[in-house]
C-alpha cells in the first residue's frame, strides 16, 4: 500500500496522532537543549560527516583490516551478500550450538533481513529484549521507529498485551509496574538463552572490536550470559579508529533522545573465557547504494532517529505508514534504492522543509536526496493520472507569462466566488483537510507594479 493510504489508516485516531506528534516533537526539543550545550557541535557534525565519507571511500580495505583483527581476537567472521544468506549463516551457527532459545537486542539489520520468522520457522524461540521491541513483538508488529520502537502504542495497549502474554495484573497502564514485570519476564529469558544476538553501532577496523549502545543493558545481559554471542552488522557500520568513537558517541545519543550518552556503550573485542563470538557482515544492497553518487551519503546514517522526530510528515503519519524497516526521512532515501516501485511514494512523503538535514548528526543531505529520488521515480514509475495531467497543465501555464496572468485572474475570482463544495471537490487533495485561502483581488505582479509606481510618484 502507498504511504498516503497507510497514513490515512494511522490518521483515523486523531487523538493518538496528536499525542504521537507532540511526543516526538518533545524528543526533538530534548535533542535541541542537549546539543546547544555542546561547544563546537557543528564541528562535531562536520567530523562525523567527514569520517564517514572517508570511510566509505576506503570501505573495502577497512573491512579487511577489521576482519584480520577480529580473527586475531578469536572472533569468527562471516560474510553475507543478502538477507537470505545472513539468515542462513545465523541459523547454521545456532544449529551447530544446538540452540533452541535466543535473546536478541535491538538490531535494525535483523529486522531488515526478517531473521525472527526465519528462525521461528525451525522452532527456535527468538525473544527481542529491548522493552519497546518486546512490546511490538508481542503485538506481532514491526517497530515503528528506530530508537522508540513502540512509540505508536499507548500504555493501555501495553497493559493489555502484558496481561495476555505475561499474565500481569490490570494496572491502568502503569509504566513503572509494566517495566518491572518485563524485567522479571526477560530476566528469565536471559538466564535460559543459548545464544545472544546483538546489533552493532560501530565496528572499529583498527581493533577488530565493535560497540553496542543501549539504555536498558539488554545487549550486555544477553551477550555476557549466553555461551555464544552473534553480532550482526551492515558493511557501513565500520569506522577506521577507536578515537573516532569519541566523535560518534558524542553525536549519537544527543541526537537520538537528548541524553549526553546512552547508559551503556559496550566495547566488545574478545569473547569471554569459554564463550564464542561471531560477527556477520552484511551487504544486502549497501554496495549498490554506494555506487550512486547522489545517494551514497545515506550510508553515513548512525540510526539516531532525529530525522523522524523532527519530520512533520513522520510525526503525523506514524512509522508504519512507510512500510519499510527504517521509516521516516532516512528510510525514504534508503528504500527506493532497494525497490523503486514498491517505495515510490516515500520520497513524496515530505514537505522538503529540510529539517531532517538540519538535525542529522552526520550531515546527510536528506531533503536534497528526497528531491533527487522524486526526479528518478517520476521518470521511471507510472504516476497517477490526475497528477500527471495537472503537472503537464501547470508546466504549460508557467511557461507563458501572459497565460499565467489570465489563469491567475480566473483562479483568484474562483477562490472568492465559487462554493466550497466545488473548490474542495475530489480532485483537490489539498482541500481534504484544509480550506484554500480567499483569493485576493490583486495579483502579486499588480501589487508590485503599483508599489513601484507609488515610489516614483512620491519621489
Amino acid at each position: 500500500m502507498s504511504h498516503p493510504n497507510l497514513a490515512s489508516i494511522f490518521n483515523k485516531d486523531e487523538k493518538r496522532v496528536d499525542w504521537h506528534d507532540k511526543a516526538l516533537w518533545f524528543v526533538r526539543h530534548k535533542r535541541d537543549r542537549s546539543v546547544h550545550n555542546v561547544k563546537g557541535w557543528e564541528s562535531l557534525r562536520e567530523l562525523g560527516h567527514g569520517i564517514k565519507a572517508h570511510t566509505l571511500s576506503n570501505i573495502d580495505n577497512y573491512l579487511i583490516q577489521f576482519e584480520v583483527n577480529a580473527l586475531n581476537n578469536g572472533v569468527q567472521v562471516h560474510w553475507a551478500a543478502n538477507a537470505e544468506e545472513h539468515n542462513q549463516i545465523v541459523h547454521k551457527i545456532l544449529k551447530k550450538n544446538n540452540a533452541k532459545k535466543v535473546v536478541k537486542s535491538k538490531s535494525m539489520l535483523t529486522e531488515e533481513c526478517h531473521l525472527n520468522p526465519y528462525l521461528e520457522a525451525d522452532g527456535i524461540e527468538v525473544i527481542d529484549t529491548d522493552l519497546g521491541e518486546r512490546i511490538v513483538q508481542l503485538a506481532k508488529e514491526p517497530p515503528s521507529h528506530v530508537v522508540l520502537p513502540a512509540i505508536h502504542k499507548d500504555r493501555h495497549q501495553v497493559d493489555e498485551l502484558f496481561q495476555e502474554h505475561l499474565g500481569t495484573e490490570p494496572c491502568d497502564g502503569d509504566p513503572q509496574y509494566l517495566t518491572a514485570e518485563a524485567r522479571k519476564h526477560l530476566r528469565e529469558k536471559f538466564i535460559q538463552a543459548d545464544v545472544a544476538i546483538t546489533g552493532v553501532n560501530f565496528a572499529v577496523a583498527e581493533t577488530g572490536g565493535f560497540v553496542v549502545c543501549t539504555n536498558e543493558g539488554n545487549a550486555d545481559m544477553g551477550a555476557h550470559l549466553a555461551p555464544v554471542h552473534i553480532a550482526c552488522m551492515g558493511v557501513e557500520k565500520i569506522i577506521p579508529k577507536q578515537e573516532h568513537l569519541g566523535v560518534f558517541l558524542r553525536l549519537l545519543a544527543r541526537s537520538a533522545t537528548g541524553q549526553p550518552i546512552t547508559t551503556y556503550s559496550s566495547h566488545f573485542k574478545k569473547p569471554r573465557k569459554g564463550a564464542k563470538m561471531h560477527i556477520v557482515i552484511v551487504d544486502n544492497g549497501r554496495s549498490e547504494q554506494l555506487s550512486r553518487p547522489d545517494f551514497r551519503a545515506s550510508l553515513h546514517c548512525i540510526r539516531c532517529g532525529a530525522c523522524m522526530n523532527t519530520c512533520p510528515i513522520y510525526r503525523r503519519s506514524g512509522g508504519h505508514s512507510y512500510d519499510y524497516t527504517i521509516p521516516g526521512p532516512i528510510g525514504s532515501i534508503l528504500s527506493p534504492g532497494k525497490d523503486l516501485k514498491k517505495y515510490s511514494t516515500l520520497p513524496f512523503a515530505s514537505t522538503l522543509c529540510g529539517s531532517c538535514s538540519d538535525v542529522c548528526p552526520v550531515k546527510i543531505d536528506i531533503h536534497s536526496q528526497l528531491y533527487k529520488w522524486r526526479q528518478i521515480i517520476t521518470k521511471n514509475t507510472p504516476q497517477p493520472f490526475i497528477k500527471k495531467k495537472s503537472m503537464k497543465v501547470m508546466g504549460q501555464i508557467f511557461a507563458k507569462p501572459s497565460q499565467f496572468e489570465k489563469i491567475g485572474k480566473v483562479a483568484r475570482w474562483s477562490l472568492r466566488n465559487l462554493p466550497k463544495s466545488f473548490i474542495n471537490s475530489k480532485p483537490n487533495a489539498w482541500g481534504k483537510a484544509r480550506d484554500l485561502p480567499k483569493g485576493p483581488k490583486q495579483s502579486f505582479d499588480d501589487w508590485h507594479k503599483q508599489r513601484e509606481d507609488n515610489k516614483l510618484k512620491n519621489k
Partner: protein
Amino acid sequence: MANRDTILASLKANKPKLIDLPFIDAAVFDEQLDLAAEFTKILEVVGGNVVAVSNDDEIASHLQNSFSELPIKYSTIDESYGSIDLETIANPKDLENLDVLVLESTIAVAENGAIWLADKNLPIRVLPFITKHLAIIISKKDIVPYMHQAYTKLNNTESDDYGVFISGPSKTADIEQSLVIGAHGALSLTVYLKG
C-alpha cells in the same frame, strides 16, 4: 569465501575516489570545565547518585548505611565487604541474586557522566549489569573533560578485551515516553568521588 570476495570486490568497484580523513582537534570543544562539578551535575541528571568522599572509611560507612538490608554483596576493593566468593561461580548465571556490587574505575568523563569499566577491573563481565545496585569508586584526578580525552587515555593503555562506558542506572522510556529507572541492568548507581 566466495561471498566475502564478491562483497569486497563490489564495494571496491562502487566506492568513490579516496576522500581525506579529517583530523580531530579536541581543542575546538574545550570549555574549561570544572571537571568534578560537571561530572557530578550530569551524572545526577541521568539518574546516578554522587557521593564525595575523602577516604575509604567514608565509603565503607556509606555502603553500610545504604545497603545494610541486602545480603548478597561483592566488592573488588574490599574483600571483607563481600558475601560471595567468585571462585565458586561456575556460570555467570549464578550471579542472578547479587544485590550490591562495588567496583573501581580509572576513567570518568565530565561531559556525560560516563565511567569506564573493563575486564581488568571486572572479574566477570555480567557483574555490573546483573547486580541490583552498582557502586563505583573513582578519583577526581581520573575525570577527563570529553570522550576525546577518554579515548586518548584508552589508546595509551593496554587494550581491553571488553569494556563499557556506564552513565547512570539502566533505564527505559519505551512505554509512552515515561522514564522508568531500572530496565534490565542495575536499578541504582552510586559513585564515590574521591579526593
